[in-house]
């Protein structure tokens, strides 16, 4: 037999899963999963993000895939779209970097600047830093 307290626990635990099935306006984490993304290692990145979201118990987050973003050389690419904020694009992701993004950007709201793609005058600045390395 369940007590009222146990029911409340079931309610909380299940709501997170069930609630994902409704239309929401929440944070979206999008992983580029076209051939280029997968070849560059997008799948481990995706799994790491899902794992981190699950570990931190985040319920208002959608993890979605998308096709080729058009910057294949910068894959794996992860985009974080928070409601009411501009989209932030992260490039050359690894599972470890992705976990940091979930923790710092998604939860704490601090954009992880060092992984962000910077565009100035239509040119991707990150490209140059790579060449200079």
């Amino acid at each position, binding site marked *: 037999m369940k007590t009222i307290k146990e029911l409340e626990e079931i309610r909380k635990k299940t709501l997170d899963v069930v609630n994902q099935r409704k239309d929401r306006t929440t944070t979206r984490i999008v992983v580029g999963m076209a051939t280029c993304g997968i070849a560059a290692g997008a799948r481990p990145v995706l799994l790491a993000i899902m794992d981190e979201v699950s570990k931190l118990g985040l319920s208002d987050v*959608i993890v979605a895939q998308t096709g080729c973003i058009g910057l294949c050389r910068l894959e794996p690419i992860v985009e974080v779209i928070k409601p009411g904020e501009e989209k932030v694009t992260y490039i050359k992701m690894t599972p470890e970097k992705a976990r940091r993004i979930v923790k710092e950007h998604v939860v704490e709201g601090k954009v992880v600047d060092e992984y962000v793609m910077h565009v100035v005058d239509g040119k991707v600045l990150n490209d140059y830093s790579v060449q200079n390395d």
Partner: protein
Amino acid sequence: MAFYRSQVLVCGGTGCTSSESMVILENLKNEIKKHGIENEIEVVRTGCFGLCELGPIVIVYPEGAFYSKVKPEDLPELVEEHLVKGRILKRLVYHEAMEDDRIKSLNNFGFYKKQYRVALRNCGVIDPENIDEYIAFDGYKALEKVLTEMTPEEVVKVVKESGLRGRGGGGFPTGLKWELTAKEKADQKYIICNADEGDPGAFMDRSVLEGDPHSVLEAMAIGGYAIGASKGFIYVRAEYPIAVQRLEVAIKQAREYGLLGDDILGTGFSFDIELRLGSGAFVCGEETALMQSIEGRRGMPVPKPPFPAQSGLWKKPTVINNVETYANIPAIILNGSQWFRSIGTEKSSGTKVFALGGKITNTGLVEIPMGTTLREIIFEIGGGIPKGKKFKAVQTGGPSGGCIAAQHLDTPIEYDTLIALGSMMGSGGMIVMDEDNCMVDVARFFLDFTRDESCGKCTPCRIGTKRMLEILEKITQGKGTLEDIDKLEELAKEIKASALCGLGQTAPNPVLSTLKYFRDEYIAHVVDKKCPAGVCKALMRYTIVDNVCKKCGICAKACPVGAITGKVKEHFEINQDKCVKCGACMEKCPFKAIIKK
């Protein structure tokens, strides 16, 4: 908590199940396994989404992609494209769900926009066989609330103040029913759920039971607490195997969690529920006949009073409510009577579920606030009449209701307005008819049904419906007279006044309402010997238009009874005595030279 990046909902209602949605569910799981992504994607079987016309339906979240008419062979592509590569498979998405290549939210579809879901709140969202998911959406919280914070009198008061009226047809105030039964003193009282949904074309209750069985169990326990009953029965048709099976699972789970049985949630309140299967007698949906049937007797009505509130099941005070009525109760308890009153109209609060059928684009299940007009339901939610045909009438209330004609389309739907139009709310069947439906034939169809389902106990119903049917058959065969129409009307009024139970008292409604709005069609059958809609076979004639006819003889070959005679390049003729009016010749004629009138 398990985190899934995507959820795939597959409709497990009867409609979609009959078009192989269970095969789709299995194949989908296999396909997902093949790609090794079974830990990322959750596949859930839910209750009815309502848009049965488009079944089997599969919805993928978080995108909210609404895939319709999915076939098992579509699945490899669907899984690979959408779930692996994250690209929506546009060719399978319901056309209304896409706008400028983007997915529209479900709530913005024409079909869902005007709906308001209270009774169907969990249908198509939760897995009906998983009690935890029901609990997640505040399931059993209302029961918790009444058992720990409210007295039985307070529960009755809230239900009474909500203005909830019986959703099974009559529209009797539910709170009043509960109050009358609560006042009775007895060693034992009973709560019954009437799930003997028998109207042709109605499937509201089935969908609630299939999609959200726990809401009914919870409401019955609340009712038990309110009136002082410790025992409940659900009388459900054996023809609803999926509903029966889900109820069984739900009762078992509720017992395991201690939400049914002794000392519920440690509060000292005990309540349990048993299932009783009906064998498809329409009359057993009538409350007194239903109780006879539960007691193990032949299902026949008994005169009222005494009402069930005083002397019901085994002569004990009994509350008997319909499935949809119960489904509203937990929401009323949690949100309050004022909230419920704010939906719908003054005299009919809340929402009503309708099963849309007949000549309508979006066949399916809809829930609307009371006061929505028939036009909104049929043309906005239902998508109008297919093939550009003209709307003629809508039949509400099944065999007990009547037909409502086009001039009343802007009537708001309420218990009392529908009765004023000569129909009734009924349990919520809504059958739409277009110009191709013959109203005399419709009346004949329903009379045939009630005559067949009459239990035979009282004379007006047993013999009266038979006589009415005979007159209607006479008219549809072109042998009727004007006196027959008067006789039919007189007989109808007398049966209405004298039959024992609701079945007989309402059986003449289809006749009376069609006589009221479509008397000209009756007269056309009787005086002109014509069926304006071209339905009544005996009144139809197929003829060959000589100057269009190319004398090819294809019609003569197509005729299965050899009624067409003639010579190629000369002349062909249809022998009316031999013709069986099958229409085969008209279909085959390449020159449209054969007409029906």
